[in-house]
């Protein structure tokens, strides 16, 4: 549900408008994945759009609630598990990937969704990302990249542009920002797609493909923090430079994907996909077979 549009203060008209919209939403099935808890994000936060897209993707994939596990770290995205009707683990800062890995390894029958911000995923959690990718564990990791630490009220993050003034860099951030898309490709993720919060309808199919991919799906999504970032990622600026991934792009071509990532334009869609790379589960089965072969 987007909170961007405001209903008029006309009460009867309000009820009628809301009620009809509510019916549409209920019919869509999106609510099936939402718990009763209301999100705590600021009005205008990009997370609402992402959540909408995610719910749509889950609907499309037909994931059962009881098999859904949402794992988060600390940040505004941290509360995600509470907003979903399923099982969740709101872990400690930066450690969502290990927890998610543990869940999926224990119960390969579950659908594991990992969410977290850029601080959570590239700062404190930065050391876990390459190894989760190396293991190719079949989870979907959506990284909410808003270029700032929002929950703690506006400090620099690993993706804050150089020079931007923030709470901890009142004279401008001196550090070079990381680019999660380049990192993900550099780490050889078996699936990498990007998008931005401005187009939830474009995001939903991306998420669906990410969920469908057998292996580690890494989806950094650019999203604004309307409260603490007035200059970098804004609703207006977000639309600048975003284009769909060219139709002739071969997603199995890593070099091409990197070129897209390094391009001054931003591309939403699937940049890279290796559908047949053995997953962690495949390797486990392989190991078990070899171990059984060696057993006396």
């Amino acid at each position, binding site marked *: 549900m987007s909170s961007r549009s405001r209903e008029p203060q006309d009460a009867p008209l309000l009820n009628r408008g809301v009620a009809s919209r509510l019916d549409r939403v209920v019919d869509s099935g999106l609510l099936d994945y939402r*718990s*009763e*808890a209301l999100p705590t994000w600021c009005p205008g936060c990009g997370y609402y759009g992402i959540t909408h897209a995610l719910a749509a993707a889950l609907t499309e994939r037909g994931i059962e*609630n*009881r*098999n859904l*596990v*949402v*794992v988060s770290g600390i940040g505004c995205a941290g509360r995600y*598990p*509470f907003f979903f*009707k*399923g*099982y*969740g*683990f*709101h*872990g*400690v800062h930066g*450690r969502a*990937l*290990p*927890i*998610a*890995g*543990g*869940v*999926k*390894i*224990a*119960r390969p*029958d*579950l659908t594991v969704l990992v969410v977290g911000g850029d601080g959570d995923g590239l700062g404190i959690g930065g*050391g*876990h990302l*390459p*190894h989760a990718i190396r*293991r190719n564990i079949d989870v979907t990791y959506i990284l909410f990249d808003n270029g700032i630490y929002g929950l703690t009220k506006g400090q620099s993050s690993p993706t804050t542009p150089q020079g931007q003034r923030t709470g901890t860099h009142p004279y401008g951030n001196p550090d070079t920002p990381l680019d999660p898309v380049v990192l993900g490709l550099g780490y050889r993720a078996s699936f990498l797609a990007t998008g931005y919060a401005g187009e939830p309808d474009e995001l939903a199919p991306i998420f669906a493909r990410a969920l469908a991919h057998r292996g580690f799906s890494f989806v950094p999504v650019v999203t604004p923090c309307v409260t603490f970032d007035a200059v970098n990622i804004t609703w207006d600026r977000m639309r600048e430079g975003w284009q769909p991934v060219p139709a002739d792009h071969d997603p199995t071509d890593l070099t091409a994907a990197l070129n897209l990532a390094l391009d001054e334009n931003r591309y939403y869609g699937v940049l890279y996909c290796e559908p047949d790379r053995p997953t962690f589960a495949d390797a*486990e089965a392989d*190991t*078990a077979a*070899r*171990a*059984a072969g060696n*057993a006396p």
Partner: protein
Amino acid sequence: MGRDEPAEGIDVTIRICGAAGDGSLAAGGFMNAAAARMGYHIINIDLYPAEIRGFGKSVAHVRISDRPVHTPGTKADCLVALNDPHSITEFGTLAEGAVVLYDSRPPVYWDEDRAVAGFIEPGMVGYGVPLGELSARATRSTRSRNIVALGALSGIFRIDPGALKEGIEARFGRKSAELAAQNLQAFDLGRSWALENLEKTDAIDFHDRIPGQREGVRVVSGNEGAARACLEAGVRLYAGYPITPATKIMEILAKELPARGGVVVQTEDEISAIGHAVGSGFAGTRAVTATSGPGLALMTEFIGLAVMGEVPVVIIDGQRGGPSTGLPTKTEQSDLHIAAFGGAGDCPRPVLAPADVTECFTLTRTAFEVAEAFQTPVIVLLDLFLCNRTEDVNFSDVDPAPWGAWAEVRAERHEGEGSYRRFAVTETGISPRAVPGTPDLYHAVTGLEHNERGLPDYTPENHLRMTRKRYRKMETLLERWPEPELAGESGRAEVGIVSWGSGIGAAREALAFLQTRGVRAAGFFPRLVWPVCEEALRSFAERCERVIVAESNYTGQYAGLVEQALGARVERLTGVPAAPLDPAAIVAAAGGEA
């Protein structure tokens, strides 16, 4: 400490010392295995060189007895010198009247003070055997001097050679029949040379006796015991990071788990390891990680998360010298504080400490059940000494559940009104737990303080209620846990000795010694070291004139907990000798003459 074994008894400690490559540890291994098969009890520790390559000193320390033993002993009755300069440094470990077996015909003369025989003093018994020459005769190299020495020992000490030779044949036979034959010949040459040429003037005599063939007995280390516990507990995931002295557990499970439907993940760091284990626990399967002090320090945040989220997980900590990187190859018992209290906030969780190798198996096994029954991380404290030392264990004789059976409370369906309350406050503190995959019982686990439904709630009333609940679980555990072991004097005692972990073995020997000296001494040996069994402690302290708490750390970490429980001071026997607790030190503290 003098030994008061009866004239018939066998209690012999042998140290086989060589440079890396001399096969001293292999020889110790053969001795252990043979002694165990013959029906003796053994405790063995291997001392490795500090460097990976080179010719550093490596010593196999083997204690063989016809009665169960609890410590490796500090003094050796026999030194087998496979390398003279290294062996010279071992003389401080020799008991009075010790036997020194050395190579009487090295290829060249030793420089002054490099020959071990030059340091043999009156009272010691020196046996020179041409180890190198006999080895060359059998295998055309000097690499079998260790086997020759074993043969010589079997002759001198009248050890029946059968089990030794079986072990040698089996080990070398794996590589080739020829190698096995050569090494058997080396053994025989050593044995016959000793019998023909040496006049026996020492007192060690096995009388060629075999106390009783023990089928199914194996020589097992603490790490192996703990690993076996994980296997028998049906662990689904072992996630871990290599660290001395726990790495062996991971390596054993990496070999054994895959065939049993489990998997081992070597993670990028300890935080990822505990994270994986907690995730698995949350998902409803058994998961474990093993580490040492530095790793446990990294894991404290996740321990807090597991306590707050009431997620079961087992952490094995092989304690070593600390703090920080500390002494990676030396034993210590200084992680009790961090195991019981490490992490932010009031964060209760059970801490177990096995006393010997068999308990490394049984207690770790129980840890999985306790973790699930009480929905909590459980830390099992081993130490480097326990991890690495070997004892004779017959698993078919071992009581699989000496600490009772513990059932977990699962929620399989929705009962009652409203949403499922994952953290419902109950009388025991334990809430029925649903795991992912269960219909309807949706909830999220969080590190934030939360209400019964698991939603974040920071109100003071809620926080108190939930904190109390988490501590109530520990009280319930304490109520149901077996009484701590009491040893020695059952009535009024002059001195009471409290110890935990591997210290219990030393305390047991000290206790036995004190009793032979007519001292009324009692022992208190808990395996659940946190929460502290206050009631039992108080009854114990009440009947002892003095209470001494013996442990291998500097500040007396358990002693502090004991004092807290008693509301009174106790005597502390503390120290960081980078070696196992010495029974003689306990005896001295108790006022006895060692």
